[in-house]
């Protein structure tokens, strides 16, 4: 329901955008911000995140990309309270597969690859082992720090709304290569990767960016 309302609201706003004349006036560098985490936090997501990216044209249709961000998460389970925080960085390349000769203008369809690393710490408090035959006991998992890294394939669209101001989305397929978390507790969220209980994740980003 929340996602449907975001979709409808965004569609209404975007339908009001003025038509524009597209010219190929791209500059070499881009900086952007993923705004989806802000929308999620409004609707009570357990994760809070900020993600920025920058890219630089290194060939006719090639871009070197660096992304980074911070993330924190809280989860109140049936018999515990969980909290985590950390940062992540990604590096890779994007390719614009939209041919300029056929489609003059600045809109882009990008596909790319990333290598990513995340460092985070987590802890669990108020862990209650429920009573059974023996009495219940209370304990905690003290703070543990560890790193994770993964590979990511990316595809998305970047469209020029106003001169040098772009908006777009991307989908990502992520495969976890390694995570150093203790065996006794998988992380709820790995910053930049998503669900920490899975070895593979799909991701979605919705961003605004400037070309300069």
């Amino acid at each position, binding site marked *: 329901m929340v*996602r*449907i309302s*975001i*979709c409808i609201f*965004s*569609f209404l706003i*975007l*339908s009001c*955008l*003025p*038509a*524009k*004349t*597209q010219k190929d006036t791209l500059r070499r560098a881009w900086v952007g911000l993923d705004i989806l985490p802000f929308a999620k936090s409004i609707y009570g997501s357990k994760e809070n995140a900020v993600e920025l990216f920058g890219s630089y044209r290194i060939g006719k249709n090639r871009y070197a990309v660096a992304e980074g961000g911070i993330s924190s998460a809280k*989860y109140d*389970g*049936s*018999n*515990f309270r*969980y909290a985590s925080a950390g940062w992540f960085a990604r590096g890779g390349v994007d390719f614009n*597969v*939209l*041919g300029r000769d*056929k*489609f003059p*203008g600045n*809109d882009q*369809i990008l596909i790319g690859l990333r290598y990513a690393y995340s460092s985070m710490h987590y802890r*669990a408090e108020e*862990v*209650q*082992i429920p009573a*059974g*035959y*023996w*009495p*219940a*006991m209370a*304990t905690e*998992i003290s703070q543990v720090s560890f790193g994770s890294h993964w590979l990511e394939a990316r595809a*998305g*669209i970047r*469209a*020029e*709304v106003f001169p040098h101001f772009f*908006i*777009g*989305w991307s*989908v990502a397929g992520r495969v976890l290569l390694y995570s150093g978390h203790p065996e*006794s*507790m*998988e992380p*709820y969220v790995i910053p930049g990767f998503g669900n920490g*209980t899975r070895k593979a994740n*799909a991701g*979605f980003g*919705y961003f605004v960016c400037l070309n300069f």
Partner: protein
Amino acid sequence: MLRMNIRLFFQHARLLNGKGLLTAFLIASGICFLGVSCTGDNACKQSRDVYLVVSFRTTFPKTEHDTTLPDLTVYGLTRSDSLLYDSARVSKVSLPLNPSSDTTGFVFSCRNAADTFMVVCTRQPHLLSYECGFVMYYRLIQVFLRGNLADSLRIIQSDVTTDHGTNIHLYF
């Protein structure tokens, strides 16, 4: 083939209502990805029970095989008021270890014989899943037997988890 499809997609989009609509269309289509993403189910569907499983074995008359005790009573060492098994006919027992202590004792009695069964282990809280929460996992270090019921024992699997496999063979 992919490039051809993309080209057709953009040409159709532009014909609809000018180039500005293309931008809006592309972005709106992206947002609609949100609507098809999965929603989680928060119900716990795993067993949360962690038991030390003790199987009864005998080598009588020659080869080793499972055996059944006809009239077995089992309770925790300080919990004689609360029986785990009451005059039961069983070939194995599932025993809850004490999550608050590294040592748990049980009393096995069968007719006129009885044993005190002491388990020494390490404990580790384990997050089963975010839906199910924490349970206590154990790793057996030593198991002692005192009394006149069983002959000996052997640790088969030292990790006591939710998998409910046999941890100890108790020989009669």
